[in-house]
Structure formats: structure tokens, C-alpha cells
């Protein structure tokens, strides 16, 4: 029984790790995107 639980736990952990890594990367990119958009807007308004 222990091997069965271990195998499924590992598969879940690997899947969860992939989803978590994608979530964290997405959150960081969204934050970068927000900051960069603001910087572009600021640059455009200072040019005017």
C-alpha cells in the first residue's frame, strides 16, 4: 500500500510543482508588464 501511495503522491507533487511554477512565473510577468506599461505611459507623456 505504501508504494501505491508513494507513486501517486510523487505524480501529484510533480504535477503540482509544474502548475505552481507556471503560476509564479505568470504572476511575476504580469507584475513586470504592469510596471513596464506604466513606464511606457510616463515616457510618452513626458515626450509630449
Amino acid at each position: 500500500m505504501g508504494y501505491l501511495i508513494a507513486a501517486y503522491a510523487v505524480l501529484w507533487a510533480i504535477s503540482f510543482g509544474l502548475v505552481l511554477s507556471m503560476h509564479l512565473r505568470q504572476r511575476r510577468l504580469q507584475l513586470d508588464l504592469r510596471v513596464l506599461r506604466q513606464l511606457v505611459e510616463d515616457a510618452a507623456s513626458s515626450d509630449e
Partner: protein
Amino acid sequence: MKKNDCLPLLLTVSSSLLILLGLYLALAGAPDANLKSETGRLAQRIIYFHIATAWVGFLAFFVTFVAGAVYLRTQRRQWDIAALASAEIGTVFMLGVLVSGSIWARPAWGVWWVWDERLTISLVQFLIYVGYLMLRGSVEDPARRARFAAVYGVVAFVSVPVNFVAIRLWRTQHPLVFGVDGGGLSPNMMFAFFFCLIAFSLWYVTLMWHRIRLERLRDQVDELKLRLV
């Protein structure tokens, strides 16, 4: 809610529900295998997720192969993104195959690992695709990176048919679930088996959707950085 948000939500919820149902079938719904030992019968239930995980790995590498070939022909970024997304998902799933297979091997064979053809080829295949991801990380120029990765992805795909036929070509210790004499599973086991295959395929599509979206976000960030420079 926008239509664009609806599809990923639907995909995520439906694939998660199918995976949970698959888990129930694998652990309780499917009948026991015709094995003498209790440990063997329990360990055999690993195959439902183990084979479905391997299937997703092979499918993902096939998509990397196709997307790479189409990229070489069209030079369109979307195919490079699809190849990368699929290779990353496939590599993670192959890791799952190696680890779950090793855990199954302990009660079934009495060892965690043997250097037989199927297991060795699976490990080499995993390392080949780790190499694919490392190659992408080591080339700065995006066009060169995409071209190198596409060629690598096409060539690396050779490992998939070799891995698939390994248990048919050589007499390996790895069991052959579907051979020329028919399947080694009873009809109820077959149902759980194919249910898990479908659930994992949908899970792969869901992961692809999210991973491609992530890469498009990265492109937007790079584009804005360039505008600022």
C-alpha cells in the same frame, strides 16, 4: 467574464474533475489484477497513472516535433512557443514516468532500478529533453534559439518511437501491457485505463494553454522593454 477567460477555466475545471475521477477508478473502481500477492495487486494499480503519464510525455514530444518542423518552414514565433511549451510539459511528465515506474519496480521486481533497455532509453529520452530546455536557455538571439531548438526537437523525437518499440524489440523486464496477443487488462481495467488516458490528454491540453499564454506574456514584456530602450 470574457470569452477568453471562459475556455481556460472550463478546460481547467473539466480536466481536474476527470483526473479526480480517474484517480478513483485507478485506486478503487478498477478490479484487482490477477496476481497472487497483495502487494503486487496494489502496486499494479500504479499503471493507470504511470502509462497515462508516459502517453502525455510521448504526445508532448510529438507536438514539439511537429511544431519544430512547422517553425523551420514558416519561421513563425507561435510554433516556437508551442514547441517550447510542449517540451517543458513532456519533460516534467517523463520525470513522473521515471519516478512512478521506479516505485512500481520495487515491489514488483524487488529493486528500484534495473539498466534494461526500456528503462535506460526512458532515462536517456528524459535527459535529451532536459538538453533541449538547456539549449534554449543558452542561446541569446531569439531567432537562432528558435531555429536550433526546432532542429533539436525534430531530431530528439527519434527517441519516442525507439522507446515505444523497446519492449517489443528486446526482451526487457518491463511488462508489455498491449502486445500482439491482445491486452493484458480485463474489460473493466481497460475502461479505467482509457479513462485515465483521456483525462491526462485533456490535462495536457489545459497545461499547454496556460504555458503558451505564459510565453506570450513574456513576449509582451520583452517588447515593452525594447520600446523603453
